[in-house]
């Protein structure tokens, strides 16, 4: 083995151990008999049964799933429009501002976005008596920061591919809408798909923004998890973490398969 190869293997082994060891231990301790994370007291699935009997956790998960479905779908549509405008419309009024508005939510500190959106919702509620804080406000908040991620993926994909197909369709008399529907959309569908998945994951995972805009009645899964882990280590959370890791791995493999198929 050459010195360079040894360097590569050492770096990768160390890096991936750092990334995965904590997750592996969380998964392992979900099967621990003892409540204490410090003692391995034998194999048990009791925390798993406790998790599936935990009504508050289950209803929080159900709410999170519904919000993620709605917000990922709306964000995919708006993000597709934004990405298309940025990649295909070279000049329009306020284009620079538009570009900044699309990218800024990616890097905006979440506490800042959270407080500002809450103030908007409270203000609107004071003036027009709408919206009530809950499902709707959480979904709006998630859509707003997810648009950026869809738009960036779509824009990169559009910048990548040959415009001559679109031009040929237009030359043959297709309207812009027909061209978009029959040529552009099928070509960028994988990008929209992975953008949707990303938006879905971000929505399922968001805590800070959600905590600000949720109101008193709604509790999403991350809010439930947060209030539980604040009190310390809880093996039920380990079991939940295991489920999330497995789902994430499946989603990632699926998304890689989508991208691979396009290539």
């Amino acid at each position, binding site marked *: 083995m050459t010195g*360079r190869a040894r*360097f*590569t293997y050492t770096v*990768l082994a160390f890096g*991936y151990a*750092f*990334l*995965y060891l*904590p*997750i592996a231990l*969380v998964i392992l*301790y979900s099967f621990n008999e003892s409540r204490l*994370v*410090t003692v391995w007291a034998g194999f048990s699935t009791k925390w798993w049964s406790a998790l599936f009997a935990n009504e508050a956790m289950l209803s929080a998960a159900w709410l999170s799933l519904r919000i993620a479905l709605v917000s990922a779908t709306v964000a995919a*549509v*708006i993000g597709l*429009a934004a990405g298309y405008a940025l990649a295909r419309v070279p000049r329009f009024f*306020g284009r620079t501002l*538009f570009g900044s*508005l*699309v*990218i*800024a*939510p990616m*890097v905006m*500190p979440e*506490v*800042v976005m959270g*407080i*500002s959106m809450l*103030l*908007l919702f*409270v203000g609107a509620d*004071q003036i027009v008596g709408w919206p009530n804080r809950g499902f709707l406000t959480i979904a*709006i908040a998630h*859509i*707003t920061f997810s*648009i950026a991620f869809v*738009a*960036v993926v779509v824009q990169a994909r559009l910048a990548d591919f040959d415009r001559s197909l679109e031009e040929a369709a237009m030359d043959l008399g297709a309207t812009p809408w027909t061209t978009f529907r029959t040529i552009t959309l099928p070509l960028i569908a994988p990008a929209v798909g992975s953008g949707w998945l990303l938006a879905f*994951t971000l929505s*399922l*995972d968001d*805590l*800070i923004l959600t905590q*600000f805009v949720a109101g008193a009645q709604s509790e999403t899964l*991350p809010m439930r*998890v*947060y209030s539980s882990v*604040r009190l310390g*280590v809880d093996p039920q959370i380990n079991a*939940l*973490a295991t489920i*999330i*890791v497995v789902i*994430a*791995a499946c989603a*990632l*493999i699926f998304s*890689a398969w989508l991208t691979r198929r396009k290539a």
Partner: protein
Amino acid sequence: MRLVIALPYVWLATFFLLPFALVLAIAFGTNNPDAVPPIDLGVSLKNFTLLFTDDLYLAAWLGSLRIAATSTFVTLLLGYPMAYAIARARPSVRPLLLMAVILPFWTSFLIRVYAWMGLLASNGILNQFLRGTGLVADPGTILGTEWAIHLGIVYAYLPFMVLPLYASLEKLDTSLLEAAADLGASPIVAFLTVTLPQSLPGIVAGCLLVLIPAVGEFVIPDLLGGTNTLMIGKVLWDEFFLNSDWPLASAVAICLLILLVGPIALFQRQQAKNLERQ
């Protein structure tokens, strides 16, 4: 076509831009616990004066910047060799290696931070290991210290560092390295004069992607840090949720935004440049 532009434009103007105007307006108001919402509008600089004169807030600002900067640097030191090793791996295994870096990002952020709670507790897994192997007889508790916050930030944001670094290192023209070697440059000189400058866009993007969220981080200092460690994201959260002082929390948000406007603008400019190059 107009609709394609108008839909995202109107959405983002309403739910992203307009709220900042409200935060700005309310930051100049005063707290009134009896009103609903607990705000008296007005033009008072009280909140801002407090933020820049009170020792507690000053400590929080400086603490956030210091912790975010050192963690970003450590993340770079760890992420650069990883990105380099992936970029130099066989092309057939690169997608798999990249996917393994991205996977933790797709799992829950909260869960990844939680993973360190069990590891770092006073009789947690790490300390048991240290005692068991006899490496350290009496290890102190890491959980609740600044060390734990640093570790949490490095762990949680490592993928954000590796991905842009990989993107710029993968494009690196290896013939330049061969040319440098032919001309007698040692591997270290070749690295410093060829590889490092060429990967500079990746370094800048990666560092910004870690630094910006780390300054305003809330979950990591809340779960891993102790009560003594002050970070500005946590101050904002506590002012809002515990003290119900909305105007002061808004003022913190405005200051945080002003502090980060430079890095954010730099990031946006770089993104725009990247897209033009494609």
